[in-house]
């Protein structure tokens, strides 16, 4: 968008702008002994106020690394380039102390494992109060009162008593809700939730997703929801971005991506899913092979080795994200037009074989590179 507006207000007010967050050409490389791991290879997206953007992808697709980069939380050896614009500021260039003003206050993050994001030696209430007092000049007592209110909001019973509990006295679902309370303590504009319910049981997941929804409604925050679970995305996200091998390969509204995918990878994912709402012994259509190694990625489309539609051009030229037949729906495939009206079973075979070693398609299955 028009990021060149000069209004000189620091920190910038974002309420009157089209987008709360704009990420442009984000790249993250990790130097390793085996070579440069190109974890994120050019990610761009925008996030409108109150919007929920779901980022989906399998392990190693770069979805988590990208969000850590946005928050400036990657280890020092990571090479990050591109732009992360919040208001007029490019967050990527900022010093640690300047970034600290944005974290929590404007952009909050929720991680997968609540036990590691809460400090075990402080009470839950103390930690929420700390988050409030880091950005606001209020008394400890007032901050604790706010903490109780926040815990009540995210659905913790007997919040006034529970506020004095330590994290180990909370169950997994309650911990994650306490983390959500922490995240919304300063009315952020953006919440980044990285696999917020992956470690939880489904009935607890439903509770936590509900808490997240309430938290968003109360604060008016936009959200980036990173997950591998297409079911969670379907229910929560307005728009969906599919990542593969460090790049976005499809972006669109949830309906675009689920009902008219224009990238074979997305189609393959949908065909691989067993469905709770479909009975009978339907045959699944897996995607053959494994994701490519992010070290020495061969030229061409990274999905080509697994793609049943591949043509010679796919191995030479990596397709860019391009508009499809629906406005706002982009796909990175040379042949996205030919996916109109195609079902997963038309393209992928219902095979039970898996006989190509990852090495032969490049040394893949590399664990996700995180701090």
């Amino acid at each position, binding site marked *: 968008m028009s990021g060149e507006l000069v209004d000189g207000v620091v920190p910038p007010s974002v309420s009157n702008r089209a987008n709360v967050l704009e990420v442009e050409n984000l790249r993250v490389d990790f130097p390793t002994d085996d070579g440069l791991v190109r974890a994120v290879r050019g990610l761009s997206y925008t996030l409108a106020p109150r919007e929920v953007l779901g980022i989906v992808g*399998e392990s190693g697709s770069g979805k988590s690394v990208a969000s850590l980069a946005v928050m400036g939380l990657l280890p020092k050896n990571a090479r990050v380039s591109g732009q992360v614009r919040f208001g007029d500021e490019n967050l990527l260039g900022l010093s640690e102390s300047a970034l600290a003003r944005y974290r929590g206050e404007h952009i909050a993050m929720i991680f997968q494992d609540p036990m590691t994001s809460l400090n075990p030696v402080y009470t839950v209430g103390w930690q929420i109060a700390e988050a409030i007092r880091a950005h606001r000049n209020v008394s400890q007592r007032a901050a604790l009162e706010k903490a109780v209110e926040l815990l009540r909001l995210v659905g913790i019973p007997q919040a006034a008593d529970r506020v004095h509990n330590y994290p180990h006295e909370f169950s997994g679902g309650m911990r994650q809700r306490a983390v959500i309370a922490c995240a919304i303590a300063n009315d952020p504009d953006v919440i980044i939730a990285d696999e917020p319910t992956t470690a939880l049981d489904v009935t607890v997941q439903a*509770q936590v997703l509900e808490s997240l929804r309430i938290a968003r409604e109360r604060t008016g925050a936009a959200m980036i929801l990173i997950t591998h679970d*297409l079911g969670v995305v*379907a229910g929560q996200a307005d728009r969906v971005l599919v990542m593969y091998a460090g790049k976005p390969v499809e972006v669109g509204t949830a309906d675009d991506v689920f009902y008219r995918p224009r990238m074979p990878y997305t189609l393959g994912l*949908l065909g*691989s899913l*067993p*469905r709770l709402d479909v009975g009978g012994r339907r045959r699944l259509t897996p995607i053959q092979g494994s994701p490519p190694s992010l070290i020495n990625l061969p030229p061409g489309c990274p999905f080509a080795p697994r793609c049943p539609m591949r043509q010679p051009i796919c191995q030479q030229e990596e397709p860019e994200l391009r508009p499809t037949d629906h406005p706002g729906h982009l796909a990175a495939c040379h042949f996205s037009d030919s996916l109109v009206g195609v079902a997963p079973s038309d393209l992928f075979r219902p095979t039970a074989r898996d006989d190509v070693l990852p090495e032969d398609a490049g040394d893949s299955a590399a664990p996700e590179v995180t701090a």
Partner: protein
Amino acid sequence: MTLTESASPPANSTNREPILSVRHLVKHFPVRGRGLIRRVVGQVHAVCDVSFDLYPGETLGLVGESGCGKTTTSRVILNLQPPTSGEVRYQGQVISSLSQREMRRLRRDIQIVFQDPYASLDPRMPVNEIIAEPLRIHGMYDSKSGPRQVAELMRTVGLNPEHGNRYPHEFSGGQRQRIGVARALALRPRVLVLDEPVSALDVSIQAGVLNLLQDLQEQFALAYLFVAHDLSVVRHVSNRIAVMYLGRLVEVAETEALFAAPSHPYTQALISAIPIPDPRKERARQRIMLSGDVPSPVDPPSGCRFRTRCPLFATLTDAEQRRCIDEVPALVDRGQGHPVACHYARPVQVL
């Protein structure tokens, strides 16, 4: 696969002999105190009075959330852990009291595939050796036909036999899980216990393993006990499903019957909580929200163990609630066409 008519009692269970039957299985683990003597201060009630049958060639899905005792059940069935009480019969023979040596012979018939394909394969053994190991242990490997047998097993599970001299780390997660399946198949078992066999895999890989398991079942007439937390996967593979909560079975039904008319409030909540990858359906769904968390299995609630979180319990009169508190609901058919462990069971359309 054959789909049995949904609402009627399981047709295959009345006239066929179960291959595996579990009766009143109980498994408690002692909780020891701190200090020098480490006295037993309590019991984790991991599995309580669980009974079910597994029929030849069928898949029974055992589903529940973490800590419900489904994995412990599978371990006790394999006699990897002795039951506190109750018995497990394989083809009529009680196996829970067998000695190690007697059990070894039976292990040919009952095999297990573990959840984590990264932890269940010896990283220093080439895949050939991993698959041959059970054959060697049971004295069924001879140097002439052995390698051919192993190659055949690799082909059977969809791997390339040429990769037999490679090590596990060279394979993807899905391929490693296939190696685990090949190892389990080596002795030509009749029952395979699959303990969360696909939950560590990405969806695009998981689908291939699920297809493989279906093919193998048809090819070798295997009976599967499919233990998993993901009800979508369980629905996809199972003929019948047993739902477990806090150590007890709460509902057992043919797959289609369970989804058409789930009758235990926990089953209903579980089905309603699982997200469906379909935005329009998902947005239109009404969720049954459970309050709170699973109670500790060290001190489970009296009577019905689900009552502390049960949405139905809250709507009952005091007298009715009394019954939930005092009386453990038996797992019996209360007019739903399949057994349900709820005093006030009534079917609800959830999907």
